[in-house]
């Protein structure tokens, strides 16, 4: 099948690649761009392991064609922090034991990142509702909720301190 030329911004860098029009975004990210943080768990957009941030929205990249992402600004788990400067969510997931096998974690954190932009000071109920598109089989969610609430508190405290 003839390939198309795709350009997009991924984790702050301009990238281009060739891909078939029918290729799913998750496959282009993982197999053509070697961004393997987002995972594939179900192919029916239920589990959220493939969650990325695209043009300011949480998107399940297993049910988006790469062609639809042409020109998009994409952030994946790899773009949220780096070893010298972790995102608060990355720190809080470790601090509160919000992960076990780690397979859901990139999607989970990437979704939480957008949730806290949409609602910087969520209640527990709002976290549970806003994160319900991401499944975890290991943790029972309790510590994930704790981690996200702790991250929100810390981010808000930092914002206040800066003002």
């Amino acid at each position: 099948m003839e390939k198309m030329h795709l350009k997009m911004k991924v984790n702050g860098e301009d990238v281009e690649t060739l891909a078939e029009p029918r290729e799913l975004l998750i496959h282009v990210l993982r197999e053509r761009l070697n961004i393997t943080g987002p995972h594939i768990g179900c192919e029916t957009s239920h589990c959220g392991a493939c969650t990325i941030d695209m043009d300011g929205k949480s998107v399940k990249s297993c049910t988006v064609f790469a062609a639809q992402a042409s020109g998009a600004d994409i952030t994946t788990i790899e773009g949220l922090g780096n070893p010298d400067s972790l995102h608060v969510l990355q720190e809080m997931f470790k601090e509160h034991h919000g992960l076990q096998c780690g397979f859901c974690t990139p999607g989970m954190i990437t979704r939480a990142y957008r949730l806290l932009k949409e609602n910087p000071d969520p209640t527990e109920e709002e976290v549970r509702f806003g994160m319900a598109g991401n499944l975890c089989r290991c943790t029972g969610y309790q510590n994930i909720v704790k981690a996200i609430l702790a991250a929100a508190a810390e981010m808000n405290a930092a914002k206040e301190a800066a003002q």
Partner: protein
Amino acid sequence: MNEMTPPKAERAAALKGLGTSRKRVEDARFTQGKGNYIDDLKLPGMLFGDFVRSPYPHARISSINTEAAMAVPGVVAVLTAADLEPLGLHWMPTLAGDKQMVLADGKVLFQGQEVAFVVASDRYAAADAVELVEVDYEELPVLVDPFKAEIDGAPVLREDIADTLEGAHGARRHPNHIFTWESGEKDQTEAVIGEAEVVAEEMVYYHRTHPCPLETCGAVASMDKVNGKLTLHGTFQAPHAVRTVASLISGIAEHNIRVISPDIGGGFGNKVGVYPGYVCSIVASIVTGKPVKWIEDRIENLTATAFARDYWMQGKIAATKEGKITGLWCHTTADHGAFDACADPTKFPAGFMNICTGSYDIPTAYLCVDGIYTNKAPGGVAYRCSFRVTEAAYFIERMIEVLAIKLGMDAAELRRINFIKKEQFPYQSALGWEYDSGDYHTAWDKALDAVDYKGLRTEQAQRLEEFKAGKSRTLMGIGLCHFTEIVGAGPVKNCDILGLGMFDSCEIRIHPTGSAIARLGTISQGQGHATTFAQILASEIGIPADDITLEEGDTDTAPYGLGTYGSRSTPVAGAATAMAGRKIRAKAQMIAAYLLEVHDDDVEWDVDRFSVKGAPERFKTMKEIAFASYNQAIPGVEPGLEAVSYYDPPNMTYPFGAYVCVMDINVDTGTTEIRKFYALDDCGTRINPMIIEGQVHGGLTEALAIALGQEIAYDDMGNVKTGSLMDFFIPTMWETPNYETDHTTTPSPHHPIGAKGVGESPNVGGVPAFSNAVHDAFRTFGLTQSHMPHDHWRIWKIANDLGLHE
């Protein structure tokens, strides 16, 4: 002690050893998207394999035409059973002593069965070609109901063994019958039941479900034809056993096979077995000379690999009028699907189902399990439980409730008067196990106090009055459970898989500068082994956990072990770790004594050092000893500081727990709300409380899923009705409650550090607690037993059948 030496407690804390809620070392890579899971692996020239699967549950294959598929650009090969047959790989042995088709050999026996394997340059080309393989099927009558397997005219499923009267587990009485397995005293138990003052009888069904880890199964096989070496990467919970099995079935010498389990995205029993995808990847790599990747999609995962449970348990429980249990009888019809691929120790075709006397002192018992073939996927794995322990726990915890109804007794009190007493341990059960330790009454009382059990019953009665008066449409259920597990398989004398004894191992190397690497025969799938096993070692050898690297999963470097499942890592490999640590310490003692110029017996262990008895200011730290082991010529002592231990446990361990679930049920919608869930676990010595708590939360959520909605359901035609996450229930954050965790500590007397294992307890104990809560809510209206999963419709149906909608 000299002035520079920090106090004992401070030095011990710096080690982050046993009992510390040490943060996980695995998390740095997982939180940054740098995990290394099987589908992340990319090798040069790698091809991609994909299966053609049967749409029919039972059919003869008259022809397979691969011509059109082969014409798809990028397609390299299409393998069928005919291609595998010359290699003797069209069938493979199962873990249960049966054999299984790798690719359909003349017929298919379940929907989703592997028929052909397409190998192509990428997954899209492979998927295109899968669509173009033309298979002609002739449909055959389908057997779905295991109770119809032996009636006249039942279709014979396994024609390959139809005339074989002797199976891997004794006599077979019908072509669709796999085995009969008995435990206990039949005549005596039936006599006790015949003469009993009270007998409760019930059919308890634990439905078919699936472990469904978030990562599906997969493998990358890479045959290096130049060196004759096969490297097999994959989602293996038992990498060493996979190496041995791969060698036995492929004929490749075992030293020429390297098996690597990378990071695994959850296992829960799904990744214990050997699947056709692994075998086909290996063959395809041998045929093409290139690495071949195979990754299941979710539908394939749910429909073809590793179902769990599906036990129909007919029970009778006998008691005196006062409630003292006198006997327990159980006949189980076990639906094993088309091939017997249960992951059980060889001598236990029904796993440890004979732990079904539970936490109770039952003098007489009998268990009989019949394994049956049906047109369903093979499996029968231990989904977050030791082999069939969760079925056993569900059975006895339902039978206790049913007996309480019959006696008109409070179910909490009925449990209490029948618990095995603390002073009875080690306790010999009627079905042959020796329970190592326990203190059930203490745990039970603590749990009932914590939830204010009496207060809950009072509230329940008030709410019932309101319901009866028409003021409310909600019923309150209190779900009780006291479970006893049997984990840590197991003693080589009676536990093996395919002849491989179920010991486990640890090898430790101390580096010259006093840090260390330890390698184990197990493999973490989220349990945090790299964190917790380093803690065991830190306490044993006085080197900080942060200075110990822990490696698992590479059979070229790790010592042989039987892997991680059945809560066996801590009881078996954890014990090996402690024992290897003790060998290190014994040698370190000799080195310290030499350096301090005293006799070996004149030094004593002090947290992270050896000091001279009576002169604590004279000491050698482990760091100093480590360096000395590399640079001193010590008479009679080899250089270096290394040890390996292969641990054969003397007994299983028996974790237990007391759970209480409080549930509100809307009788008109069938919806449930978990208002409270209290979980007390006793897993013996606690290594990392943070990780234990996380395991309990996760296991309870899996239990909630199973009890309240998750199932692999088939229709009468043998079609899978719940083959994707559209229909297969996994609770989201929204449906999942918060849990209260608690513990008592009863160390295992035979384990070197007293630990028992915990990962599976919450699934084993959680399912009965949730299910009992549903039953309890309707008890007063006459409900004694209703089969799981208790989804909204089934609960609505209970209410409707009881006339509560009139």
